[in-house]
C-alpha cells in the first residue's frame, strides 16, 4: 500500500470525472471524504470552511441596530442546466435574493446536496463550479454544508438546499405590513423570463433559444434603491407563482387590494410571443432576477430612476398601486379597459391548446 499522498489522502486513486455518485459517497466514509476534499471543498475555500468543523462559527454584527436576516430555500429545478443559468446559480441567487428583500447584505450561505446514485461526477463538478462562481461574484462565503446520497430513482439527479445569513442595516424594517392604500407598485424588469426558459428546455418545446433565465443576485440593486432615500415599504422577489403570488402575499398581509395595469407590465418580445403561443399568463410564471418594490406614491419616480440606473433594473416600470379593499384582491386593468380579479392557480400553469 503506497504511503499517504498529500494530494489524495489515504486513497491512491484520484477522482476521475467519468465516475458516478455511489451510495457510499453519502455514507460518511472514505468515499465521502474523497468527494468533499477533491470536488466540493476546494471550490469554496474560505477561512471558516477551511477549519473543516461540523459548523461555522460567525462573528455577530458589531454595529448597534444591525440585525441578522436568515433564510432557507431548496432547489429542485429540472433540467439542471438551462439557457441563462443552472441549479447552482439559482441556489446562490435565490437565497441571496430572499435576504436582499429585507435590505440585508448577504454574508454566509450553507450548502446541502442530495445526490442521486448514478449522477455523473462531471455534472456535480459543473454545478459546484457554478455555485462557487456565483458566490464569489456576490461576495458571499459558503461556510458550512452537507452531502447525502439517495438510491437511484429517489431524487431527480441533484437537489440543493441553501440557507443564508445576511446583515440588515440599523433602522431598516421592510415588510408587507407597512404597505398602505395609494402606495406605488414597481417591478424591476421583464416578467416570465425564467419560467418560460425552463419550461421550454424541460419539455423540449422546440422554441428556438430566444428564451433565457433572468437569474441574478439583487442585493446591489436593493442597495441602490435604499440609497436613493425613497420611502420603501416592502420588497418581494416574484419567484414561483410569479408576480401574482408575490402580490397576493403582500395584499393578504397588508390587507390592501392591488390594482395593476396589464399594459404596463414589461416583457421581452419573444417571452410575450411564447406566452401567447402556449396560452400562459405571464403573471403566473416564475422570475429569478426581478423584484417588486412598494413605495410611497410620491417617491415612485425617484425609485424608478434609482432602479433604472442599475443594469439589473433597466426595464423597471410602475405597474400599479395599492388601494383600499381589505380583501387582498389583485385587480387587473385589462388592455381594453375592462378588469378581472386575479386568482392564483392550483399549481403550475401548463401550456394549453384550448
Amino acid at each position, binding site marked *: 500500500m503506497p504511503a499517504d499522498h498529500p494530494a489524495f489522502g489515504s486513497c491512491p486513486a484520484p477522482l476521475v470525472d467519468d465516475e458516478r455518485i455511489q451510495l457510499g459517497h453519502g455514507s460518511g466514509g472514505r468515499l465521502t471524504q474523497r468527494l468533499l476534499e477533491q470536488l466540493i471543498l476546494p471550490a469554496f475555500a474560505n477561512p471558516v470552511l477551511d477549519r473543516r468543523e461540523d459548523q461555522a462559527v460567525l462573528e455577530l454584527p458589531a454595529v448597534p441596530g444591525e440585525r441578522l436576516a436568515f433564510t432557507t430555500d431548496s432547489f429542485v429545478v429540472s433540467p439542471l442546466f438551462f439557457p441563462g443559468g443552472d441549479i447552482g446559480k439559482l441556489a446562490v441567487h435565490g437565497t441571496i435574493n430572499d435576504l436582499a428583500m429585507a435590505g440585508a447584505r448577504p454574508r454566509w450561505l450553507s450548502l446541502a446536496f442530495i445526490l442521486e446514485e448514478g449522477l455523473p461526477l462531471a455534472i456535480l463538478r459543473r454545478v459546484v463550479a457554478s455555485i462557487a462562481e456565483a458566490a464569489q461574484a456576490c461576495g458571499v462565503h459558503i461556510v458550512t454544508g452537507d452531502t447525502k446520497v439517495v438510491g437511484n430513482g429517489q431524487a431527480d439527479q441533484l437537489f440543493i438546499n441553501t440557507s443564508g445569513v445576511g446583515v440588515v442595516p440599523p433602522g431598516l424594517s421592510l415588510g408587507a405590513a407597512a404597505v398602505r392604500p395609494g402606495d406605488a407598485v414597481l417591478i424591476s424588469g421583464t416578467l416570465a423570463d425564467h419560467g418560460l426558459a425552463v419550461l421550454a428546455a424541460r419539455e423540449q418545446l422546440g422554441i428556438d433559444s430566444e428564451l433565457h433565465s433572468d437569474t441574478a443576485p439583487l442585493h446591489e440593486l436593493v442597495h441602490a434603491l435604499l440609497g436613493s432615500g425613497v420611502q420603501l415599504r416592502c420588497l418581494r422577489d416574484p419567484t414561483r407563482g410569479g408576480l401574482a403570488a408575490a402580490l397576493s402575499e403582500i395584499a393578504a398581509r397588508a390587507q390592501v387590494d392591488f390594482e395593476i395595469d396589464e399594459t404596463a407590465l414589461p416583457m421581452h418580445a419573444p417571452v410575450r410571443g411564447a406566452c401567447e403561443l402556449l396560452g400562459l399568463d405571464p403573471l403566473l410564471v416564475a422570475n429569478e432576477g426581478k423584484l417588486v418594490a412598494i413605495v410611497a406614491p410620491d417617491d415612485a419616480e425617484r425609485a424608478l430612476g434609482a432602479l433604472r440606473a442599475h443594469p439589473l433594473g433597466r426595464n423597471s416600470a410602475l405597474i400599479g398601486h395599492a388601494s383600499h379593499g381589505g380583501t387582498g384582491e389583485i385587480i387587473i386593468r385589462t*388592455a381594453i379597459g375592462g378588469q378581472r380579479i386575479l386568482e392564483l392557480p392550483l399549481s403550475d400553469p401548463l401550456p394549453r391548446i384550448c
Partner: protein
Amino acid sequence: MRYIDEFRDRSRARALLQEIQRIAVRPWVIMEVCGGQTHSILRYGLDALLPAHLELVHGPGCPVCVTPLELIDRALAIAARPEVIFTSFGDMLRVPGSQGSLLDARGRGADVRMVYSPLDAVRLARENPARQVVFFAVGFETTAPAIAMAVKLAHAERLPNYSVLVSHVLVPPAMAAILESPGNRVNAYLGPGHVAAIMGCGEYEDLLRRFAVPVVITGFEPIDLLEGIWMAVRQLEEGRAEVENQYSRTVGKDGNLPARRALQEVFEVCDRNWRGVGPIPQSGFQLRPEFRALDAGSRFDVQSIVTSEPPQCISGLVLQGQKRPTDCPAFGRECSPEHPLGATMVSSEGACAAYYSYRRSAARAGDAR
C-alpha cells in the same frame, strides 16, 4: 404583435361598446361556443362591460371538459403500462379520472409527457423503437387535421409503435343539441372561429335552416368578440338570422380545403358521448378502418371503469348555457378547482373553473361600468 395588438386596442373596444350600448334595446342571450372565447371574455373582463340586459353564456367549447370520464380512465390504464410513453397536450394532464389525473399517474411512475404538437409524438416513436408511444388526441375540428397528419405520417412510415387514443368532438352537432334542448335560452351564437377556419361556414348555414338563430363566426381577441357581439345584437334587433363572418381575416367561406381533405382521408364521423351533455349522434371523429391499426383503444385491451358523476353536478346545464356556474349550489363550496365535481370545473378552461379563476366581485363589476 401583429394581428394581435390591433385587436386588443382600447379605443376600438370603446367604440364597439358604445355601439352595442346604442343598439341593444331588448334583453338577449348570446352563447360563445369555444373555450378559448370564454377564456378571452373573462380574461379581458368583457361581460362586465356589456349592458346588463345582454347575457353571455359559455358553451361546451372545451374539448377537455367534454371528454368522458371513461376515456380518461382508459388513458390512465394505458399510461400505467411500463412499455408506454403516454403523450398529451398540457390541457389534459390535470383532468382527474376515477383514479386521479395523468399527472398523478406520472407521480406513480408512469411515463407521461406533455407535447406541444402531435408531430412531437411521432418523433418520440421514431426515437424510442422499443417503447409504445400513445398520443391522446383530444380537440375539435381545429386540432383534428394536425392529428390526421401525424396519423398519415406514422402509417406511411409503418411505425409499429405509434397509436392515438381518439377523443375528437365536432362543434356544430353540439350547437344543434343545445338549441334542441327544452330549456334552451340561446338567442344567437358566436361561432367557433378556428373550427370555421378549418371547416368553413357551410355547416352553420345548415344550423340556420333548422333553427333560424343568428350565427356570427367570431375570433378570439377582445375586439373580435366585441365585434361579434355587435353583429349578433344587430341581427337580433333587426329580426334577421344569418351566418356572418366576423373573423374574415382568418376564416374563408370554404375553410381550409387541404385540411378538410386530410380529415376525410383519416377520420369518419361517429356518435360521441359528451361529458355533462350526454350522447350526441354524429358528433365525433374516429379513425377510418384503413387507419384503425393505429387506434390505441383497440391496441391496448384495457378494462375501463364506468363511473357516474356526482348528483349535485349541473355541468350539463352549464355547458348548454341554461345555468350559470354561480347558479349551482355546490359552486365554490363542495365543488372547486381543488375538488371538482364535474366536467366544467375539472379543466381550467371549463365554464365553472374559468368563473372561479376570473371571478369578479359584484361590487367591482358595478364600478367598471
